């Protein structure tokens, strides 16, 4: 088990944003959290990343309790987590190379190894020619590839993706979905993906976690959740 979320609650102004969520994610699994805006899915992701702490419950990563009832036991930078954000969040004052290098340098990896890892990663996301480009000069799709590369280069235990494709047009969305699938399968990385788009969720997930009002409403494969939603609407 890579991630264990155990009866987690998070309140904002006494209103629960996460209301007793428990979820386990297995190694190399691709889990998609599906739900409307404000259902708590991004909050859940940020709790796992360590940006906010659960008011109740605990989060365990690789057998180590990282957060428990309001306390951060392991800082985000020590959790070995990668994250791709909805608004991409590439550092505008650094080149593509700088964006990929930042985390490696922070971990004191030697220059030769950094260069090698960056070259390999850029090749994987097919962005070799853009090493020295500035993020502002890249298209939306290219920026998203670099954001993905920046997260993956740190060889995280789990990759968190917060609606990474929601700002892209449909063609690009479909193309990048395929690439995310390919990369996840090639690298065997554990992935927790958050989206409000059912079609996107069903096409990417091994397991779909349906959320609403801060609670998990249904967990299952795409067919099961799809059927559940259909029954619900009838």
């Amino acid at each position: 088990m890579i991630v264990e979320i155990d009866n987690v609650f998070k309140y904002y102004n006494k209103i629960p944003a996460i209301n007793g969520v428990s979820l386990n994610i297995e190694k190399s699994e691709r889990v998609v959290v599906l739900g409307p805006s404000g259902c708590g899915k991004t909050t859940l992701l940020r709790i796992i990343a360590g940006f906010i702490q659960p008011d109740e419950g605990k989060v365990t990563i690789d057998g180590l309790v990282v957060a428990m009832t309001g306390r951060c036991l392991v800082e985000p930078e020590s959790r070995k987590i990668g994250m791709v954000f909805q608004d991409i969040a590439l550092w505008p004052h650094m080149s593509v190379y700088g964006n990929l290098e930042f985390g490696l340098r922070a971990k004191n990896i030697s220059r030769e190894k950094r260069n090698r890892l960056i070259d390999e990663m850029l090749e994987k996301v097919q962005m070799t020619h853009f090493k020295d480009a500035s993020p502002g000069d890249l298209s939306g799709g290219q920026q998203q590839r670099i954001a993905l590369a920046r997260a993956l280069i740190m060889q995280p235990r789990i990759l968190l993706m917060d609606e990474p494709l929601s700002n892209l047009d449909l063609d690009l969305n479909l193309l990048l979905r395929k690439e995310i699938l390919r990369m996840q399968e090639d690298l065997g990385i554990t992935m927790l993906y958050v989206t409000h788009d059912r079609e996107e969720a069903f096409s990417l997930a091994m397991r779909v976690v349906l959320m609403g009002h801060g609670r998990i409403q249904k967990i299952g494969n795409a067919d099961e959740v799809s059927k559940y939603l259909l029954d619900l609407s009838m």
Partner: protein
Amino acid sequence: MARRYTLLIAVFLLIVIGLAPVIAMFVKSLFIDGKISLASYGMLFQSKREWQLLFNSLLLAGSITFITVLLGVPLGTLLAKTDLPLKRLFTILFVIPLIVPPYILAIAWFYCLGRSGIVAGMFGPKIGAATSQFLFGFPGTLFVMVSTLLPVVIILMATYLRMVNQKLEEAAKLSAGWLLVLKRITIPVIAPGIFLSALIVFILAIGEFGVPSSLRFDVFPVESFVQFSAFYNFNAATAAAIPLGVITLVILIVERLFLRKKTVQFKITKEPIIIVPLKKAKPFLFTAVSILAFIFVIVPVGVLLIKSFSLRAYNEAFAISTNSIFRSLLYASIGATCLVIFGFLLGYLLERKALRFSYAADSIAVFLFALPGTVIGIGLISLWNTHATNFIYASMVIILFGYIAQYMALGERIMAATFSQVSHSMEEAAQIVGVGWVRRLFGILIPLTKRGLIATWLVGFIFCLRDLGITMMVYPPDHDTLPVRIFTLMANSPEEVIAALGVIMVVITFLPLYLLGLVTR
């Protein structure tokens, strides 16, 4: 059409009130006894003294900027972005020196470190002589000016830090600790904002007249004033003002070329700022910030309070300055109201690019803001000191013109930032159903920008109230304001009365802020 005319009138007034005096001054300086002559300029850099003044001005402003940024960036970060205890109190404390006229701080430090000051009283005349030597001249001027201008960097740091997209920091936080994230991500992202704050500090430092003049450090603004008021040498005063004008122009060009596009990238967001936990460093940093607050704020303000601690001092202070206090409040209120009107129209012009020359109008306003008050003062006198315009020259209007010219950019920029938060469609929705400009103005734009208008008024009030450079140059007889009164009484009045006047000045500056607090509670 009505909108166009309103904005054109605002730009026309900007040119007449602000730019025309500067041009008039320049033109006038080219004539001696009715003939074109460059003699004033020829003389300008022939003497060693002029070069020395230029060197002093640049050295002082450069050093102030360097130290202010060096202290202000970490301090601003600590106050805006960390869990430092009592940070709200510290923020209020550090902002006080910006509100207090700088030369009053100089007076307070004189009472503390002067030859017969508090320190001398405590540790003997030898120490007093040493502290006095420190205070008078470059180090003292630098020290007092740093304490006055530090809030500029702190406030701008807080503003820009609030605008950083928190995802940029979170993305970095996944692989690095806070120190590295701040050093490599947050601070570089707001670098244009830091550069802008450095520029503003430099502008305010190079134009400062009160502190160098009180602490006897010769710089160009003092030279202009002395040439003008002591020797009545208009041409020499103008010639001494020109190098400052040139430096101002250079600064303006730098701002236009490098900063304009970069600083407008920042948008006010509603996302909360990420607070950095200080953990083990907290006690050490708390102590360091407390020491700075003690030195820069508590000591000078405390000295003024202690020194003036007698009813007699306040009685006498009121007796000699009641009219000046009243005039100060009146002129600053009218000035601030004018700045709101100009700020609103020019801010609208800049943000909505409503006329082709929006940027030119902005450049004029920024140029005037950057120009030292003494220079604007000389300009106003050059233009309005004629028989036909005596009704302006000999009334409070000349002071108000000075305020408008110097501080218009503040209102313009605050209002432009406010307008950027108001969607164009708000006004367009009214326009499309046939609502005219005046109705849109009073029914849509003014109500939606109310907060910006109040902020402009307050900032305008504070700057007009504390102004010394312009008012000192242009005030007609019986029109002196409290800062001018204090400045002229300083040399030959009892210390406790001057201290009491300083305290009164601080209190009346805080008055509108306090009243606003009551209203908005």
